């Protein structure tokens, strides 16, 4: 099922996002290593002027340049919805 989404650099600061699609090639491998792949939840911490994005994924902050952020498709979601391996206890 294809979910509609927006490119990451247009996401709202503070929003919780589900990754819908990531680009191919080396960048894909680099992203998967950092845990950024389809279906994962991240939080958008900051979008700097020009589109450099800082996201948070499991307590880890990751900075993504605009040229890459543009290629990552995300869908806003509610922050309470349990994530892939969300908080327990």
């Amino acid at each position, binding site marked *: 099922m294809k979910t509609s989404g927006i490119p990451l650099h247009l996401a709202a600061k503070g929003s919780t996002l589900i990754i819908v699609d990531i680009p191919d090639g080396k*960048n894909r491998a680099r992203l998967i290593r950092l845990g950024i792949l389809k279906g994962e939840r991240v939080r958008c*911490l900051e979008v*700097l002027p020009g589109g450099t994005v800082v996201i948070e994924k499991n307590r880890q902050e*990751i900075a993504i*340049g605009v040229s890459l952020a543009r290629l990552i498709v995300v869908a806003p979601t509610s922050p309470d919805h349990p994530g892939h391996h969300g*908080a*327990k206890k």
Partner: protein
Amino acid sequence: MNNGSARGTTKIPPHNHVERHKHIGVDIAPEANATLKVALVGNPNVGKSLFFNYLSGMYVDVSNYPGTTVEVVKGRFKSYEIYDTPGVYGISSFNDEEVVTRDIVLEADIVLNIVDAVHPERDLFLTQQLIDMGKKVSVMLNFMDEVQAHGLQIDTQLLSRYLGVPVLLTTATTRAGFDQIETAIEHARRGEQDPALHHRLHTMLSITGSEAEALLILEGDEAIAGRHGVPPGHERDTIYIERRNRINIMIDAVLSEKNVRTRVATLFGRWAVSTWTGIPMLLAALYLIYLFVGKLVAQDIVSFTETRLGRELWEPWMRGIAAQYVSPTSWFGTILVGEFGVLTMTVTYLLFLLLPLVIAFYLSLAIMEDSGYLPRLATFVDRSLNAIGLNGRAVIPLILGFGCVTMATITTRLLGNEREKTISAAILQFAIPCSAQLAVVAALLAGAGFTSILIYSITIFSIFVAVGTILHRTLPGTTTPLLIDLPPMRLPRFDNVARKTAYRTYFFMREATPWFFAGALGVGILQVTGLLTVWQNILAPFTTGWLQLPREAATAFVMGMVRRDFGAAGLYHLSLSPNQIVVALVTITLFTPCIASLMVMFKERGFKEATIVWTGTWVVAFLVGGLLSQALI
């Protein structure tokens, strides 16, 4: 790898292609007296160097990894040979650092994998990949002190069962758990490979004979595939996603998390990459660096070391000694102890001017790095640097350039691709005045007034942007997008900062010293053969006619070839109008960088590129200087 250690008779097995084939599929027990190679492997910023420092003590060997420009540190712990590796998120060949780590891992007998216990989801990807490679692994969960602060709980026994390798707990900053490192090395073992992956590996294994290489080929590593004459695999995506899922399942089982208050350090980190708070923090950081490097070291300390130790103690002493053997006025004497003497000026310059500055800059860099500010600064300026074809990481060489262009040019190595290295090296050579020169520029401009300062700054900044933009537009290829993790903000540890500074300073001095001597020798020869005067005479008409400066300014320009600050200092005793000062300083800033930086440029960037840039600096310096002169004077 540099096996240059002359420490006794230990047999170091040759690591050639044939040797690797001896490991076909199975673990061959190493000869009893063979030195086991232990690689410390981990993501960036996991405290690897603290482990390395603990294990290797003072005896380390810094060397360039063959075929790359990445520094590799090697040390000894009991009967083990310990290799520190550049921090990576996975094993492959995406950049020089990864290539180095990949090859060290391939050759290592044991891998000590350092894992950030606060971010196991990220780090265990590398751990699982090492296990999938069939390496003997032991995992050290580091930052255990921070785990609690983050409200985390990790079932390490369960994690150890999932991975199939020992998992030990450490806090590198207090060395808690370090007494177990030796046990960890001894008990390192092959872990639990993904069963599906294991099956896939079999076919490739018959070709490579090494599980590790078989895996890398399946994951599409072109270099390793090339070594075995097979096409690289297309299964990277599948393998990566399976591995990622495996880690996620593991994390679900071993990690529990409860919400805790956001730490102050975390807030600081967020402010550093926030639009409105980022700028004041950047300015504050730059001001602190200026106070430390620009004021304390460049002015107070260097004026003492350069004048007192260099000009008043070392140089007369050296001349005295030399006078016993050669006449100071002979051509040989001139080269040795004359104005640009190899034994006088060069030594003063290297030891009493450059060394304190380089230490100060590397110290600042290490503090910014270890505190976690540097990656945030890179993030903050990323978009601006995109405009000139660079990404945020280029902020490091650009900042270092204000210390020493030679040092900064070497640092361009850490950039993502050749294109970025070319652009940043060119910008450094054209438009970044080094600290030695800045001091003179500042002094002269202060006398010339505010308008002059403004014209100078705007002109140099425009050239900076122009050079970057033109190269960005004309060079083929694209900029590597920024993708970095931002480690938590922490108070840097003194011993780690000190060690880093010491390594880098040592490495730089070893790398750059020969070029400074060669440069001085070259200019000394120009001087005794009279070619220096010829050169000055050629430049004189341009200087008086086109730049509208006194004839003697030509001498200053030529001197700028030896040392940029010499060039600028040569302008001190000419009586110049404020506008003439601006023209002269703009010309000299854009001009040929000092001869050492030029030589390092030749070495780093190759003959063709360096020649183009060098010629370019002459043309642009005279063109811009001249245009400015025609407009102002």
